[in-house]
């Protein structure tokens, strides 16, 4: 062996050893402390004048909290390392260092509580399909008193709690010493994350808050060899782009006096300014279009093509069609396309929730497409986005593109499958979204808009029958919920077994119910477990029914539950409303009033939206789903009592404008008092200029909830 070769080997071995040691070396408490102290020192030495000498503006002194300054520093690099996951391999890692720093004015006890105690794990690992991601964290706190005195929390004040095997996992806890109301707290949180063999999901830099933010800055340094894309939304300004001495990409953004947003009836994805940033390692997972360097995303086509490259739509045979599925397809040969689609959709849903550990959306669509092909039904793929993300024609990243299947012969769109929705219904977060439909090869893309729901389709209809029993009321309430109003009720008031059984009936499978399926498919041990699950689900269902009553009337109404019955699951095309009956007794809505009785009739119509004083002022547009409430209450008056014309007249209310309406009509039908109420929120988006019109209707409805009627003897 030549000397030269020996030297080379030694050098290689040394390099391997260095890589090896740095990859597996466990950090002890002293090492971590040294590292954390170093990070804190480095951060606090950064020249950031907005974090020095804070003065709270007089107009903000009465606020609970004010973010005087916020700073986010992002650094992204790449590294080639040896990985030791089931053997040794080379790993293309992305290294993300993120530091956020916030200077906050502590205006009251609630903010003091929020900012005075911290708890975090110093290290963590996350096993992914690509390898092991590791994260290391450091917290830094400084307290700035009213007189300007700055004190950094010493490392000794952090309490270390150990747990796990050989106490290897460390949690640091800190109760911030010296922090009081009127102070400023300067909080820094620093994380270093190593993503092994893969990149990370898009980062979002948002320029808004629910509390005042006087200054918000972002600074990113990204390795030039990585692929970096970004896009601005809702008026966010582009980064100031530059490069540093190493040629790496430098991005900066600053916003002063960030807009404040309320927490209700908003659609952040459409309203708040934000920047979407995505970074890929070219030698690990990446979209097809990724190239090193910086690109500002201005089109949607490139991202759409990247998304297209990642899906299959019925081409890849992931799972064999089950016997049930094949039989269903054979049995529906003579049915119309619409009926065929419904059956196939339901049987595919069944396959996805039973025995295949819940398919992902892509797998479902692939299998659904495969089954449609087998049944001779043609379809077209499409892409859309969730309402929480950007519209598809402004697509900034292929991550956010949602695949779907469009079936021209029935004119229906299928996107994320939801077991409780009938075939062809669009889930709430995709209704009315823009989409692009393509052909089997993805060559042409045609814009479409997915079906949306009108206020009339999103309906809650309640029929309430009331009988007196002394001062108690026996209530029998029938709910009929349709469109987007039914989903959450179905989730709470039906069980998994109910969904499964309804899918079986809709699909026409051999076993007609979940119970039949359990008896047919499982051994006695597994079956016992499944039966126990059903029993527990029924108990939970009962709890949820009781909660529904409480939610409908509010906690102040004393209710004794009696029974409930599901009339329609709302999972079929021909009975798409969820219909439910519940019986109970209420004991505190009737009050004695001399010889007469006073009935809180408004409470029988259910709770109405309440706007707190802070919520009544609004400076941003309103986003919600259009919806209709139609409630009818029929009250059998106790013998000898009636309602005067004057009292009846007070129950008639009519307020309507272009945004909303509230109409209530009362009539006396023999000894039955009938109150019909209709409330409509007409549109899905209202400009802020219409806010007062909405408030007007909300207030009238709230007043109506407090309405009482005198039953005269």
């Amino acid at each position, binding site marked *: 062996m030549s000397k030269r070769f020996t030297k080379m080997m030694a050098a290689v071995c040394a390099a391997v050893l260095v890589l090896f040691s740095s990859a597996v070396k466990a950090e002890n408490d002293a090492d971590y402390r040294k590292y954390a102290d170093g990070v804190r020192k480095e951060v606090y030495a950064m020249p950031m004048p907005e974090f020095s000498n804070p003065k709270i503006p007089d107009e903000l002194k009465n606020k609970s909290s004010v973010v005087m300054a916020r700073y986010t520093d992002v650094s992204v690099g790449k590294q080639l390392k040896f990985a030791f996951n089931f053997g040794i391999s080379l790993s293309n890692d992305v290294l993300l260092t993120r530091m956020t720093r916030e200077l906050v004015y502590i205006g009251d006890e609630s903010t003091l509580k929020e900012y*005075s105690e911290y708890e975090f794990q110093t290290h963590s690992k996350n096993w992914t399909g690509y390898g092991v991601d590791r994260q290391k964290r450091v917290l830094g706190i400084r307290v700035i008193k009213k007189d300007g005195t700055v004190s950094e929390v010493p490392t000794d004040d952090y*309490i270390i*709690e150990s747990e796990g*095997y050989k106490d290897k996992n460390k949690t640091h806890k800190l109760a911030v010493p*010296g922090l009081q109301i009127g102070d400023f707290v300067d909080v820094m949180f620093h994380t270093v994350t190593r993503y092994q063999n893969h990149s990370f999901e898009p980062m979002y830099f948002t320029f808004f808050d629910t509390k005042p933010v006087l200054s918000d800055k972002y600074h990113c340094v990204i390795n030039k060899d990585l692929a970096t894309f970004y896009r601005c939304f809702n008026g966010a300004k582009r980064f100031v782009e530059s490069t540093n001495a190493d040629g790496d990409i430098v991005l900066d953004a600053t916003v002063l006096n960030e807009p404040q947003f309320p927490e209700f009836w908003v659609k952040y994805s459409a309203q708040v300014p934000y920047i979407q940033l995505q970074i890929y390692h070219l030698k690990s997972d990446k979209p097809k279009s990724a190239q090193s360097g910086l690109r500002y995303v201005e089109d949607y086509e490139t991202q759409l093509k990247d998304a297209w490259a990642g899906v299959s739509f019925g081409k890849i045979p992931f799972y064999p069609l089950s016997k049930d599925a094949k039989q269903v397809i054979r049995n529906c040969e003579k049915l119309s396309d619409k009926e065929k689609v419904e059956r196939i959709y339901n049987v595919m849903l069944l396959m996805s929730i039973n025995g295949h550990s819940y398919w992902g959306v892509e797998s479902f669509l692939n299998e659904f497409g495969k089954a449609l092909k087998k049944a001779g039904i043609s379809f077209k793929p499409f892409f859309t986005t969730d309402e929480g993300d950007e519209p598809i024609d402004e697509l900034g990243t292929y991550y956010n593109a949602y695949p779907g299947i469009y079936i021209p012969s029935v004119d229906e769109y299928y996107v994320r499958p939801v077991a409780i929705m009938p075939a062809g219904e669009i889930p709430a977060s995709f209704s009315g979204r823009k989409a692009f439909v393509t052909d089997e090869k993805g060559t042409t893309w045609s814009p479409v808009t997915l079906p949306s729901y009108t206020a009339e389709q999103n309906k809650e209809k309640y029929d309430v029958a009331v009988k007196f029993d002394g001062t108690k009321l026996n209530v029998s309430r029938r709910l009929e919920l349709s469109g987007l109003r039914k989903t959450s009720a179905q989730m709470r008031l039906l069980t998994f077994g109910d969904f499964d059984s309804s899918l079986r009936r809709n699909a026409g499978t051999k076993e007609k119910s979940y119970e039949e399926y359990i008896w047919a498919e499982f051994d006695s041990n597994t079956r016992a*477990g499944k039966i126990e699950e059903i029993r527990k689900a029924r108990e939970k269902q009962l709890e949820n029914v009781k909660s529904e009553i409480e939610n409908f009337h509010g906690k102040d109404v*004393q209710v004794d539950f009696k029974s409930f019955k599901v009339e329609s699951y709302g999972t079929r095309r021909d009975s798409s409303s969820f219909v439910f009956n519940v019986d109970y007794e209420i004991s505190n809505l009737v009050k004695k009033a001399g010889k007469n009785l006073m009935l809180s009739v408004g409470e029988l119509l259910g709770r109405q939206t309440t706007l707190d*004083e*802070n919520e009544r002022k609004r400076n941003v547009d309103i986003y919600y789903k259009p919806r209709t409430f139609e409630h009818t209450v029929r009250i059998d008056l106790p013998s000898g009592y009636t309602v005067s014309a004057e009292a009846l007249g007070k129950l008639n209310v009519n307020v309507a404008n272009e945004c909303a309406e509230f109409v209530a009509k009362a009539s006396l039908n023999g000894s039955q008092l009938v109150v019909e109420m209709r409330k409509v929120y007409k549109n899905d988006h209202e400009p802020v200029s219409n806010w007062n019109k909405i408030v007007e209707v909300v207030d009238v409805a709230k007043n109506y909830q407090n309405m*009482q009627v005198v039953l005269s003897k």
Partner: protein
Amino acid sequence: MIRNLPTLLLAFLFATNVCAQTEDNNVMVSDASDCYYFSEKNGVVTVRNERAETYTATRMWADVQPFISYGRGCQLTSSRVRGYSPMYKNVTRSSVFAGDTKVCYFNARLGSKGETLRASFERLYSDVRFFTDIPFHNDYFIKDKVIKVVVPKSLSRFAVKGINLPPSVVFEHKQSGGNDIYTFTITNMPTPPTDDNQPDNTSGIIVTGSFADYADLYAWEHKFAEEVDCSVSNIDQIVSEATAGANSDVERVARTLEWVQNNIRYVAVEKGDNAWKPDAPQEVIRKTYGDCKGMALLLRTLLKHQKIDARLADVSSAKAFVKPSQVPTLCSIDHMVCVAFVGGKEYWLDATNKYAPLGFVSDWTSGCEAIYEEPGNKCRMVRMPLHTSSMSKDSVVADYSLASEGAIVGEIKHHFTGDMKMSALTAYFETESQDRKELSGRMLGVAVSPNIDVSDISWSGADSRSDVSTLSAKIRNKDAVEMVGSEVYVELNPMKDWILLVVNTEKRKTDYELPMIAECSADITLSVPKSMTVESVPENLTVETDNAVLSLLCEARGQKIIFRKKIVIKNKIVPLAKQSDWNATVKRWNEACSEQIVLKKCNQ
């Protein structure tokens, strides 16, 4: 400063995912032994614990989590469930910020009906003082279990004692081979109930003998405080700031207490020595936080500096499982306060109650045993002052008139004292500033409604010093008035009586504990316009039960209507057998209070 380790464990993470035991339970502890062996070496007494449990699935497969606790003074030496790896986790109660207690557990599975799983653990109590009690460990139904404690003759000062043992536990004490052997045989013990508002558990097994008497217990604990450096560099400055304007020793005590309440927030750190040793006063001042021990020692330091006789007192609160007079053990003490002696009078100072004025003793320490230091390294056991209903008052006083448009209009004052004051002020100050107006409205008993206008909201006495905190406002309430024809209906009942809760008796297995010993009242007058006459008012009602006295008085005096109601909670525990009666009483009361006043317009 609650140190009852086993009790803490039962509230651990298992709460969410361990099978709840019912009459049709699926997992049971079919066979278990829990043995404790005392021994002494070189004058040090240790206790070895060997625990073995067999879990059985009675109907089908199930997930089980065998577990054991360890921590300060108790090391885990072995843990085994075949086929599974142990997991280790810190367990800290929600009221404690950081602590030492850990749990070792296994996420195991019983694969099918009849399958069994054997778990074994070994621990060593290296300091016998920390071996305070033995849990029944009944997260699962226990078919057969034996708890055995073996004490050599030479250590006969140690023993165990069953407290309020349930019928499923049989106790036996015998002597064999020169040892005292205490055996508790458990047969068919159900899982403990988890009803809402159930009283604290009062049964278990207590270890006796670690301390000769309460004085020994106090001496052991007191030495930690005595080791603390109580020097405070700027004590003169603090004392003069705290007591500015105080003219007497009593005032100085009150101001000093107030200074600690205002400047030190309660944070419980029970880690390492901090579990017993108070933080140094200088450190508490620097950190601006401390636990009960730290606050008590700081108070003592500041008061002593003012030449006021101030002492530390160990308290056995209502939450402590046993009392030091019953068994002097570490788990009989769970709180520390400072006592000041001025003019021959005791002043109990608990700065952890942020809004408690001088002299107020909270419901949870009412009449509890306390041990405080006496001159000459002695101590004394006393009972803390009794908290009576009248000490915690929630009273509404309002003076309304009837406005022509159909509204009651007037001023309302809501007074809070004692624990009611603490609850009200805590809720108020912990609410974000912008939401406080709405909260105040709710405190005044008015819902958020476009028909109700609440204005001129103000607080007085919203601090720790004041005995009474008062929330005042002007109210115009249209929802309270209904006019139909010549009749006007008015509801004066200001708010739902939150303290009178209807007990959900469905499936309930335990007594019910009402929120607190307190007094709630409303004293409301309505001036009726001369153009109206009073047709009817709610009927008077007085009800007395073992738990409460309820009285409603409503009368018309000329053109004034006086509506008075008063609730006195005198006993918090509603026994299981009396809960239906209690519910009927509450419903009757609510119905009576909500009856409308009927007025008639004279000219119609």
